[in-house]
């Protein structure tokens, strides 16, 4: 089996590389866009007005309470129908991934903000700082230290979760595995190779994050 794996790598390495880039691309876009929307959802959820809170709360619960695979299918069929034009399946898949991730990131950001000592909030208010300045100048700079490590973990999760998108053949690592496996009849070997690539990606990312976290602590 090991020899077959080597042969596959030698013969198909550009395909694996391409799959890796597409997987990373999906994960990267998902986390960037997910953080943007997640931030907005988190702020809405922390509103003092209960009416404003309903929608973000429901959104987070529903998205986190249903499987990603189901969400991928829903957006794969729903999005072209809703817009009325044929849109690339990559966009449908990315939309589902972003929506899914934004719900998790929203909770990461909310928890990060709420973990900042309440006294900071009170001190800023007692000085007469506006809510906006308090958030931007006092709370967020302190919340970042709680948010960034968790956001790194989310990135690692998303890298693995993009593999589900391969049911729509979007060209990610897992799609490449299916293509190579069916072309050569070497399912298990192809799986092993892709597994090693996923592991290298997530493991090195985790190590990188630990390093940054350590640097963060030093500067604290």
């Amino acid at each position, binding site marked *: 089996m090991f020899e077959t794996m080597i042969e596959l790598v030698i013969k198909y390495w550009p395909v694996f590389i391409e799959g890796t880039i597409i997987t990373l691309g999906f994960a990267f876009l998902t986390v960037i866009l997910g953080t943007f929307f997640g931030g907005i959802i988190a702020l809405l959820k922390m509103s003092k007005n209960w009416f404003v809170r309903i929608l973000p709360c429901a959104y987070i619960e529903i998205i986190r309470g249903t499987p990603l695979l189901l969400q991928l299918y829903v957006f794969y069929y729903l999005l072209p129908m809703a817009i009325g034009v044929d849109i690339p399946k990559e966009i449908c898949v990315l939309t589902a991934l972003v929506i899914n991730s934004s719900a998790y990131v929203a909770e990461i950001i909310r928890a990060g903000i709420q973990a900042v*000592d309440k*006294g*900071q909030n*009170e*001190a*800023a*208010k*007692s*000085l*007469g*700082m*506006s809510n906006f*300045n308090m958030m931007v*100048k*006092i709370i967020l*700079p*302190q919340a970042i230290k709680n948010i960034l490590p968790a956001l790194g973990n989310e990135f690692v999760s998303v890298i693995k979760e993009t593999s589900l998108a391969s049911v729509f053949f979007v060209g990610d690592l897992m799609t490449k595995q299916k293509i190579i496996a069916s072309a050569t009849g070497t399912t298990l070997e192809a799986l092993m190779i892709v597994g090693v690539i996923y592991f290298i990606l997530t493991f090195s990312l985790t190590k990188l994050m630990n390093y940054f976290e350590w640097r963060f602590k030093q500067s*604290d």
Partner: protein
Amino acid sequence: MIKVENLNKSFGKLHVLKGINEQITKGEIVSIIGPSGSGKSTFLRCLNLLEVPNSGSIFFDGANITDKKVNVDIHRQKMGMVFQHFNVFPHLTVLENITITPILEKKIKKKDAIAKAMELLEMVGLKDKAKEYPRKLSGGQKQRLAIVRALAMEPEVMLFDEPTSALDPEMVKEVLDVIGKLAKDGMTCVIVTHEMAFAKKISDRVLFMDEGIIAESGTPSQIFDNPQNPRTVEFLSKVI
């Protein structure tokens, strides 16, 4: 300067403040004493609306700040507050802690804000710490920083919420000295405190709070030397 009318505050079923009426005049030093849970801190925190009262009114410089239409930030800028746990901003230097709010909210030029901050730091003996971060400061130094941070907004009144309760004993004096200096310079001060000797020495008036009401109010000698209310007598016998 501050007038409180029939102030009520509840936390859930717990009725903490039960219809408080009180008036604090300009330049007055008022200490609030009383057992824990009597509502001292809640009363103080209502004055700048960190706690929103359930009913009653608070007039500050003639304006009813409990009115929802009033921009409370403007009034808070005139009421400095010092907390038990300092609440200095850990991500900002000592100097930035002081200058950030005047620059942001009062649109004071950075240069002027810094000059003013350095003056204040010199007053409390922290000038050489200006570039440090608060983590390098002792508790007493942090509290002195918190006091000048509030003073930089040029408040008309200072509210102190147990300013020495979280300090090591040897640091209490340095903080009390700063408060004493402010009082001497004519700053209106409302001080919630457990430092009875300090309250007796510095105050124009002492309020004894018990179970959500001001049970007794008078000059320091009236309250400490000749208390009328049996609850005051009982409390003082325990703490002095």
